[in-house]
C-alpha cells in the first residue's frame, strides 16, 4: 500500500493532540450516573434480559476475545463488560428485583469510570464472544448499549468523542468537508480520470471516506477505475460522500443518524438503487443494518460492502481482472464489521479466486476471524495503544502461519491498526487494500 508517510504522521499527531483536548463535562457526577442509568433502562430489551438471565458465569467468552487471549487478564472477560447492565437489570427490571435489591449494589460514578476502559478501549464490538457462548448471549449488543449510556454520561475516550461530535454536528471529519472532497476529485480529474460527481441520476451512489481521500489515495483511484470499468451508471455526491460513521462508534444515536441521513438524502437525490460504502469496516453495518432502524424506515436502496460488490461483479462477468498468478502468496483479513457483523464473507474469496493467486486462509477466518484490535473506533484511543499492540501479536502469529507474502485487507481501520502495529513491532509483511489490488489488475479489455 503506497501512502504518503507525511500525511500519516500528520494524522497520527492530530489524534495525539486530541487526547489533550478534553473539556470537563458539564454534568455533575450525580447527573452522569442518572443519565447512564436512564439510557441503559431505555434500551434494555427482552434479548438483553434473557441474556443476562441465561449467563452461568462460565467465562468461556474470554477464550474468544483477542484482548483476553493476548493479556490473560480476567478483567477483559467479555461478559464482565455487562456487569453494570446486569446489576441495573436485576435492581430495576427483573421480576425478582424486590429480592435482588437487598444485596445488589446500585451503579456508582466509580463503576462507570472503571467500565469506560472496558467498553471502549478493550472491546471492539467484534462479536466473536457470541460464537463461543454456550448460552448464545449477544454480548456485543449489550456493549453497544453501554457505549450509548457512557456517551450520554460524558464518559468516553475524548478522541472518539471529538471525532464523532465533529462529524455529527459539523458534518466534517478530521477537517475534511464537502469542499475538500470536491477539491480532491478535481485533483484526480486532472490526472485524466473520468469521475462523475453529483450526477442528477445514477444507479449506484459510491461513497468514499476521509481515510481514502487523505491517506489511501490508491484505494480511491482504484474505486473510480473499477466503477468505470464495470460500466455502471454511478456517481459520487458532494453532500453524501462519507462512509465513516463515528456516531456509530461513540454510541450517540443523534450523531449516527445525522451521518446516515446525509448518505440517505444523497442516494435519494440521484435515485440510486445501490449504495457502495468505502473500504471502511464499520460503515457497512452502520448503514446496512442500523441505517433503517435509526431513520425509522426501510432504506429504498441496497447497501453493499466493496468486497461484496467486487464479488458480485466478477460473478456477473462485468468485472474482469488480469490473473496475477500463483507465485503471489496472499492471505486475507476479514474485518469483523464485514464478516461477523455484516455477513460479508464470500466476496473477497471470489476476488482472490479471480486473481488466481496462491490464496491462503488464516487459521481463523470468515466469521471466526480474530479482530485487528482497533475496530469500533478503538484505533483512535491513544491510551489503548499498548493493549492493541498485544492483540496485534495474535494477528502476526495468524498471518505468519499462512506463509503469505502480503496481507490483503478491506477495511481502513484494520489497515491503520495494522500499520501502527507493524511500525511498533518492525513487522515486515506488507498490507494491501483489496480494492487497490483489483484496481491495479483490471483487465485492459472487458
Amino acid at each position, binding site marked *: 500500500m503506497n501512502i504518503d508517510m507525511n500525511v500519516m504522521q500528520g494524522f497520527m499527531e492530530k489524534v495525539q493532540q486530541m487526547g489533550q483536548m478534553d473539556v470537563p463535562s458539564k454534568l455533575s457526577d450525580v447527573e452522569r450516573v442518572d443519565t447512564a442509568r436512564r439510557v441503559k433502562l431505555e434500551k434494555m430489551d427482552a*434479548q438483553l434480559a434473557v441474556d443476562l438471565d441465561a449467563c452461568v458465569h462460565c467465562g468461556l467468552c*474470554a477464550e474468544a476475545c483477542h484482548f483476553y487471549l493476548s493479556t490473560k487478564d480476567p478483567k477483559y472477560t467479555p461478559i464482565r463488560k455487562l456487569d453494570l447492565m446486569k446489576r441495573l437489570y436485576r435492581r430495576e427490571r427483573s421480576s425478582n428485583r424486590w429480592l435482588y435489591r437487598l444485596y445488589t449494589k446500585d451503579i456508582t460514578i466509580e463503576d462507570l469510570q472503571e467500565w469506560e476502559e472496558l467498553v471502549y478501549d478493550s472491546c471492539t464490538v467484534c462479536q466473536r464472544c457470541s460464537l463461543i457462548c454456550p448460552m448464545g448471549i*449477544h454480548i456485543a449488543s449489550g456493549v453497544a448499549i453501554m457505549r450509548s449510556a457512557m456517551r450520554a454520561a460524558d464518559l468516553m475516550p475524548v478522541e472518539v468523542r471529538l471525532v464523532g461530535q465533529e462529524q455529527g454536528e459539523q458534518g466534517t471529519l478530521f477537517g475534511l468537508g464537502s469542499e475538500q472532497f470536491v477539491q480532491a476529485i478535481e485533483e484526480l480529474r486532472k490526472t485524466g480520470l473520468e469521475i462523475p460527481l453529483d450526477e442528477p441520476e445514477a444507479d449506484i451512489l459510491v461513497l468514499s471516506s476521509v481515510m481514502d481521500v487523505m491517506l489511501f489515495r490508491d484505494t480511491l483511484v482504484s474505486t473510480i477505475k473499477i466503477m468505470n470499468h464495470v460500466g455502471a451508471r454511478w456517481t459520487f455526491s458532494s453532500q453524501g460522500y462519507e462512509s465513516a460513521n463515528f456516531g456509530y462508534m461513540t454510541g450517540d444515536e443523534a450523531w449516527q443518524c445525522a451521518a446516515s441521513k446525509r448518505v440517505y438524502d444523497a442516494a435519494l437525490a440521484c435515485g440510486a438503487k445501490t449504495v457502495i460504502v468505502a473500504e471502511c469496516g464499520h460503515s457497512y453495518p452502520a448503514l446496512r443494518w442500523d441505517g433503517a432502524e435509526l431513520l425509522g424506515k426501510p432504506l429504498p436502496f441496497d447497501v453493499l460492502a466493496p468486497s461484496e460488490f467486487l464479488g458480485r461483479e466478477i460473478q456477473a462477468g462485468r468485472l474482469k481482472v488480469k490473473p496475477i498468478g500463483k507465485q503471489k502468496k496472499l492471505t486475507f483479513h476479514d474485518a469483523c464489521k464485514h464478516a461477523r457483523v455484516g455477513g460479508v464473507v464470500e466476496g473477497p474469496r471470489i476476488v482472490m479466486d479471480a486473481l488466481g493467486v496462491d490464496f491462503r486462509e488464516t487459521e481463523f477466518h470468515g466469521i471466526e476471524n480474530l479482530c485487528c484490535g482497533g475496530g469500533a473506533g478503538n484505533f483512535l484511543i491513544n491510551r489503548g495503544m499498548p493493549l492493541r499492540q498485544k492483540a496485534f501479536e495474535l494477528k502476526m502469529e495468524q498471518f505468519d502461519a499462512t506463509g503469505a507474502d502480503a496481507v490483503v485487507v478491506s477495511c481502513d481501520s484494520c489497515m491503520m491498526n495494522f500499520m501502527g502495529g507493524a511500525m511498533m513491532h518492525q513487522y515486515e509483511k506488507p498490507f494491501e487494500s483489496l480494492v487497490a489490488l483489483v484496481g491495479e489488475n483490471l483487465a485492459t479489455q472487458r
Partner: protein
Amino acid sequence: MFVQFVEGPLWYFSATVFVIGVAVRLLFALRMGTATPLSKPRGSASQGAIRAVFSRFVPRREFRPRMRLEVIAGYAFHLGLFALLFFAAPHIEFYKDYIFGFAWPAMPRWAFIVVSEIAFAGLLVLWLRRMLHPVSRKLSDAGDHIGSILVFMVMLTGCLALDQSHESLRVLHFFLAELLLIYFPFSSLMHTFTFVFSRGYLGASFARHGVKA
C-alpha cells in the same frame, strides 16, 4: 412432624414457588420485547433462531481445543442429571404419586449407579473449574456457588439414600430438593429455561445478517 411438613406443606410451597417463579421471571424478561427490525434481511431470522438453539449444543470447531474439559464435564453432568431426574426408579414413582399419575420405564439399578458416577464427576469438575480458573473465579458470585452446592447436596443425599432402608435419608433428600426448587427461580439455574431464548435471539439476529451462528 418434620417428615409430615416436608412431604406436605413444604412440598406444595416449593413446587408453587418453582412453577410461578420460573414463569414470572420469563414473562417479565420477554414482555420487554424487541424492536421490529426494518433493514432488509439477508437470511431468515426464524430459521436462524431454531438453528442456533440446536447448533449451540456442539461447540464450533475452532473453539474446541480451548474448551475440551468444559464440554466433557458439562455433558457428563447435564446428561447425567437429566437421566437421574427423569429415569431413576424412585423418581418415576414419585412423579406418578405426586404429579402426573402415570409412570414410565425406569433405568436399571446398575445404570443408575453408572449415571450418577458420571454426573458427580462432571459436577465436581465444573465446580472446581469455577473456583480455580481466574476468569470464572472473578465472574462467579455467591449465587453461583450456592446453586452448585445445593445441586451437589441434592444429588449426594439422593445417592446416600440408595439403600432405601432409612426413611430419614429419603426425607433429607426430599427436603434439600425442595430447597433447590425454592432457590431455582432466583438463581442462574434459570439457564435451564432461558438458554432457549438467548440462543434463539442470537441465532435470529445473526441469521438476519447472513451469519450462521
